[in-house]
């Protein structure tokens, strides 16, 4: 869902890959004989795991931070496939589960958990001691955080006079023109309420009516994007006067000199999560894989490849100041809150219908 433009991302990536892979190989050799599974097939008893992911730059980063090192360490090959919530449901209900593990948007993960489509995660295998507490759930585990941010075209605004809060963002008198928002109620309603002045601590349960009432007078100035690529393109091409996007989508273009900038101020943090579909065939190996991915060192590698924040608190100690500054949950970034995925799982149907009615009226 939220990936950097693949090309942009790969360019910046070139130099760093061999170092990581090399480092991991060395570590794999060094740790042979330790308690971790080792050797081809190893203690895991499987030769391959099917891991579903979002594709694009995010999966490119995952491949280097997690999949290749895992294969190097255990001998278990990772087969990649595309993740899709509808496919998850059809696999589980037909009993033909192809995936062993999947990386999926945390709101979808919570919803799948709510619908009973997921295995419980085994926290005897996955070490949760160093994980941020809100990240740990029975059937899904959040492994990185992205920020839904306020963004602008730098030909129009300088950082000093750009909107810094959601109240600014929705103020059509101070900042005239159109603004781009995500075309789902999730994330959009949250930032609308922040714009209306609701305290982030008391955002949930969301006051949907209030959010829509707040958006109503400026509805004609709102444009809704359906993909992260589109959100970044709108800002760069000046299709909207103000925009929103996910930080990972903007970081690359910004670094490459595209006229776009953003602030982490008041950002809403969203996430990717690991899940194991109900009825997955190699449950133990899947848990081992997730345990490996959640290790501080490996999460730090992901953060170096793509600017999404680790959820293992020790990961930050492996990162330099520049990488830290690019991460949504780095110390010093004044994000507003982390999205309440479980609230969305319980209220999604109802809120989506209210949202659809409002949007189409």
């Amino acid at each position: 869902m939220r990936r950097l433009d693949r090309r942009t991302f790969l360019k910046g990536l070139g130099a760093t890959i061999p170092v990581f892979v090399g480092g991991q190989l060395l570590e794999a050799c060094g740790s042979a004989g330790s308690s971790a599974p080792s050797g081809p097939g190893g203690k895991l008893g499987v030769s391959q795991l099917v891991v579903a992911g979002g594709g694009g730059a995010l999966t490119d980063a995952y491949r280097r931070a997690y999949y290749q090192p895992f294969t190097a360490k255990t001998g278990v090959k990772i087969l990649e496939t595309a993740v899709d919530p509808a496919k998850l449901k059809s696999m589980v209900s037909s009993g033909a589960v192809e995936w062993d593990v999947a990386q999926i948007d945390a709101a979808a993960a919570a919803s799948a958990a709510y619908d009973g489509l997921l295995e419980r995660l085994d926290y005897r295998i996955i070490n949760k001691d160093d994980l941020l507490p809100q990240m740990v759930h029975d059937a899904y585990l959040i492994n990185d955080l992205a920020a839904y941010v306020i963004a602008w075209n730098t030909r129009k605004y300088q950082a000093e006079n750009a909107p810094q809060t959601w109240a600014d963002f929705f103020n059509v008198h101070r900042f005239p023109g159109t603004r781009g928002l995500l075309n789902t109620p999730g994330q959009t309603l949250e930032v609308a309420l922040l714009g209306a002045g609701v305290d982030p601590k008391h955002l949930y349960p969301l006051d949907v009516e209030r959010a829509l009432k707040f958006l109503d007078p400026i509805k004609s100035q709102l444009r809704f994007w359906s993909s992260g690529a589109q959100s970044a393109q709108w800002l760069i091409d000046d299709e909207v006067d103000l925009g929103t996007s996910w930080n990972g989508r903007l970081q690359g273009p910004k670094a490459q000199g595209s006229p776009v900038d953003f602030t982490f101020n008041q950002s809403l943090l969203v996430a990717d999560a690991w899940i194991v579909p109900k009825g997955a065939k190699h449950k133990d190996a899947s848990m081992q894989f997730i345990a490996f991915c959640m290790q501080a060192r490996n999460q730090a590698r992901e953060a170096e490849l793509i600017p999404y924040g680790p959820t293992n608190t020790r990961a930050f100690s492996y990162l330099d100041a520049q990488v830290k500054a690019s991460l949504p949950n780095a110390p010093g970034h004044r994000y507003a809150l982390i999205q309440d995925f479980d609230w969305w799982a319980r209220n999604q149907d109802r809120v989506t219908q209210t949202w659809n009615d409002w949007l189409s009226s």
Partner: protein
Amino acid sequence: MLLAPLLLLLLLFFVLPLAIEVWSSLAQPRPGLSAYHTVFQQAAFLRSIATTLQIAATVTVASAVIGYPVAYAFTRLRGRLLTLMLALALVPFWVSAVVRSFSWMLLLERSGPVNGALLALGLIGRPLPFLYNRTVVEVVMVSVLLPYMILPVYSVMRGIDLDLMKAAASLGASPLQAFGRVFLPLSLPGVAAGGLLVFILALGYFVTPSLLGGPREQMVAVLIYQQTQLFNWPVAFALATVLLVVVVALYGLAVRLLGLGRIMFAQEPLP
């Protein structure tokens, strides 16, 4: 006998899944009409069904108005020029819907070449908002669906004996009268066949409205996708069934009014 493999294929991979889909819409979340209840209670779904029918109708009429003269012009061409023109008419089939939608986006955006040219010529003071409204969705859909109109109309027109026009002229008809009273009626089965194809295909459009439409262009297919992503399958099934019923009803109506032969083969003249 020769048809057996094809029939089996259709039965297994088309009829059966559709039957399961329709059955599921009645069986989930509990037996009965509760999914349909949701669909028909919800303003957004009803609006979306109405929007979808309106867009499909507009696209069909526009395709006929634009496609008919093109098909007529084709009947006047021969040899290599005809081959070339037919190939050009088919170009929309060669480009994927996603690529096509993105190219329209780049062409028509605020900083795109169309707005750039209009600004440079001094025709407009500031960029026009071409994108994210119903008109652009319809224009792009017509550009894609036009071949489905042109080809059946052309094939019917080719079968029309042009001596009939001469006969009409010899009986004192002006060219316009000859066209209106002889050629047009003879070519209408092609328009009916093309129109049915375009309308039915338009009903299921997904990529174009979701990329180029605004909030008011949420066609049914877009909402079906949204519901599947929310694990809300019964509602998606019910929406899909509503669309299916509309298609079957229209097809039945067309067959009833025009006869199966004319719709399927676009050949027999109207009575």
